[in-house]
């Protein structure tokens, strides 16, 4: 029991947000009379929040590096608009259009990263300017109107589902199978991790506790995929999200680049004197943010099936809020990809849940604002206590 308590205490901020998320879900599940966790609504939740979650991952790196990016909503909009012009107006092949759009995002990120990292204009100012510039360019390029519709292959990115190879009746068997495959991979991973830990003579979780942990995660995982399977299966965009989450978790926890981002955010001077190429790292972080903003813009355009001038407004605020609710530090150097995802889901479930029980958009904004404030206050409080 002692080690369970220790485990809990060491990960309190991580777990507290998971607990909060579960609490919020239970609350809305009850108040919405069971609609929240219906297969259709779960699928909707994923589709509705995908573009914010994509942004939140990039934003997390930005915030960990002790920077900020206010321009992502505008960047998403301008890239969506240009994609519309290329694919709809000029009949460009969809794949080529997507690749060019992502490159454009990288270019925009490089532009802003240049000012921030090398000219040392504060990120707040640079990206505030970017927010205006790229919103303006969106209006210019769309001439104030929307372009629609995208070819169906483009729409599939957001609205499609992976095909069922087994032709299940009322149950998407491929989805269940994928759930089982992921379960097997996860269990293998845990076993391998434990083996290396023992090889290196490190402390390991007691066997009983590990089994409980694995069981819990396996149950939640399979339940989740089963619920999806009852409806239409796995949305394409969920595949995209899972790949991105895996990729960025890997980058942040396993690579030297990830370490450099955290070190830079924790203490830039010390990082520089330890050989971290700080300017280069900041630049890369913004290039990456640009690419993800572009991707987010594409996913949003595909979901809307049109490129509109007002796309992406307030996205930046949702993405930033997701990171902070997920435990990222306002002083840089602290934050996790999973935290940002959970933070994004907290916001997403609240949006969805409040709509389900008929809370007006006016009150939704107010409540979301309060949640952000309380989450960050909690973070500041727990840190001042541990220091």
């Amino acid at each position, binding site marked *: 029991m002692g080690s369970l308590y220790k485990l809990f205490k060491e990960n309190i901020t991580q777990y507290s947000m998971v607990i909060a998320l579960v609490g919020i879900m239970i609350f809305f599940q009850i108040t919405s009379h069971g609609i929240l966790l219906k297969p259709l609504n779960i699928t909707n939740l994923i589709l509705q929040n995908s573009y914010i979650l994509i942004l939140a991952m990039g934003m997390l790196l930005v915030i960990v590096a002790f920077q900020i990016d206010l321009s992502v909503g505008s960047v998403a909009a301008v890239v969506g608009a240009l994609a519309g012009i290329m694919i709809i107006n000029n009949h460009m092949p969809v794949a080529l259009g997507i690749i060019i759009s992502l490159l454009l995002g990288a270019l925009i990120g490089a532009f802003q990263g240049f000012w921030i990292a090398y000219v040392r204009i504060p990120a707040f100012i640079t990206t505030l300017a970017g927010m205006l510039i790229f919103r303006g360019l969106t209006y210019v390029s769309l001439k104030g109107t929307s372009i629609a519709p995208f070819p169906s292959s483009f729409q599939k990115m957001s609205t499609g589902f992976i095909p069922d190879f087994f032709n299940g009746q009322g149950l998407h068997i491929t989805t269940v199978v994928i759930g089982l495959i992921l379960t097997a991979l996860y269990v293998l991973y845990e076993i391998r991790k434990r083996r290396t830990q023992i090889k*290196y003579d490190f402390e390991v979780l007691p066997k009983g506790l590990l089994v409980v942990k694995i069981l819990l995660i396996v149950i939640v995982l399979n339940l989740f995929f089963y619920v999806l399977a009852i409806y239409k299966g796995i949305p394409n965009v969920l595949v995209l999200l899972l790949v991105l989450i895996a990729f960025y978790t890997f980058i942040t926890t*396993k690579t*030297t680049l990830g370490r450099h981002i*955290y*070190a830079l955010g924790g203490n830039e001077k010390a990082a520089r004197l330890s*050989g971290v190429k700080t300017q280069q790292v900041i630049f890369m972080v913004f290039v990456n943010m640009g690419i993800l903003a572009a991707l987010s813009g594409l996913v949003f355009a595909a979901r809307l099936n049109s490129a509109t001038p007002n796309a992406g407004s307030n996205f930046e605020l949702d993405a930033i809020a997701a990171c902070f609710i997920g435990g990222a*530090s306002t002083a840089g150097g602290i934050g996790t990809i999973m935290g940002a995802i959970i933070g994004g889901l907290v916001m997403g479930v609240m949006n969805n849940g409040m709509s389900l029980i008929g809370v007006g958009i006016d009150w939704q904004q107010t409540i979301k604002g309060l949640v952000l404030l309380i989450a960050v206050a909690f973070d500041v409080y727990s840190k001042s206590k541990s220091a």
Partner: protein
Amino acid sequence: MSDIILEMINITKTFPGVKALSNVNLKVKQGEIHALVGENGAGKSTLMKVLSGVYPYGSYSGEIMFQNKLCEFKNIKQSEYLGIVIIHQELALIPFLSIAENIFLGNERSKHGIVDWNETTKRTIELLKKVGLNESPKTLIANIGVGKQQLVEIAKALSKEVKLLILDEPTAALNEEDSQNLVDLIAELKSQGITSILISHKLNEISKIADSITILRDGATIETLDTKNDNISVDRIIKGMVGRDLVHRYPPRESDIGEIGFEVKDWTAYHPISSERKVCDNVNINVRKGEVVGIAGLMGAGRTELAMSIFGKSYGKRINGEIYIDGKEVHLNNVNKAIKNGLAYVTEDRKEYGLILIDHIKGNISLANLNRISKSGIVNQNEEIVHSENLRKKLNIKCSGILQKTGNLSGGNQQKVVLSKWIFTEPEILIMDEPTRGIDVGAKYEIYTIINQLVKEKKGILIISSELPELLGMCDRIYVMNAGKILGELSAKEASQEKIMELIMKQGQGV
């Protein structure tokens, strides 16, 4: 006893692990200029912080009698209320406010919260006249030099009806002319009945102006000299400041010095902002394998600037000169190159420049050489734990484990983490900037032991330290630096505190 304005009796102040002051006594006569001298770390500033209430009553033991009344200051406001004003070494002026606004900051001439600017300006003009500063009250602090800023500080003190003025190194940053003006002003204030306590390293200045001199060493009062009765020379003061038992404070080392491993030739660097100022002026130094070389000098001598400019050009502009490692010229244009060429720089300020305080010990240790435990950019975290654990044991870092945050460690253990970080880069040359600043005696001994260990592995060590005994106790050779120049080089045998001080002071007088 009425001519004694201030008496501090048996003041003892301890920080966790260090006794900064032990039974210090200080008696200041009404209307005199009383100098307080001692080496860096002797306890001068700590004593003044006790007096002014920065360290509140209860955090030290002993008594303070001011004008024959027992004082128990809980904060600076209370001591200022009685007329004790301290002017710190780092000036506490707001650069983008005017002279008048600064003088009356926190003490505004106002009625019902509304500032009376006419009264403010009038009083400022009076005060500026008193200190002999010919500037408009509306001039911004940022637009006047350090010397004039010092005068504004004094004017600010005068605005508070000061009875006892404490000046902490007021002339350290001033040129000769400004210093002279300031000294004259202090003498002038004395004639107006204001008592001053002057902390200074410029001993020739002190021997001229002070009425009595109290010498502190290692947190204890050594003696108080009366300049009227005895003819006090600079040599006499230095003798009081130094001369301590060096036995057993430094672990013994068998030196086996090899060939030159590291050499800097004709090194010149300019200040990054005031680009005409040379921070390093034609410096030539070398370090042999298995040798500990020291650089002595006062604060601001350019030692840290030298080290940082060498270490991947991390400081300064228009850097010029040559660096040789094992006889081959290298161009260390960034920190990465410096590290790859076997150089390590243990920074002076471990909190600001050395550590990521929010990160754990493990992450700090591996940061400067992640490539050692990485394959194609992916960190092997198991290797990281093994290496960190080894270093933790080797350097005896006291912690709950390598996952403890470095921000929660004691100073000595933080310093060991910084050392671990650089040992992890497998350097050949280690530059250590104030390696034992602010850590207790026991931890110091451990750091010295680690240094000896490194020397045994034939590494070259360059120590920058403001504590002369440390340099004398640890080094095989000592360079003396001042104002960006190397003034001389002393072997362990010929070096003594007097000789080093003499070299510095002589140059100081010569300019």
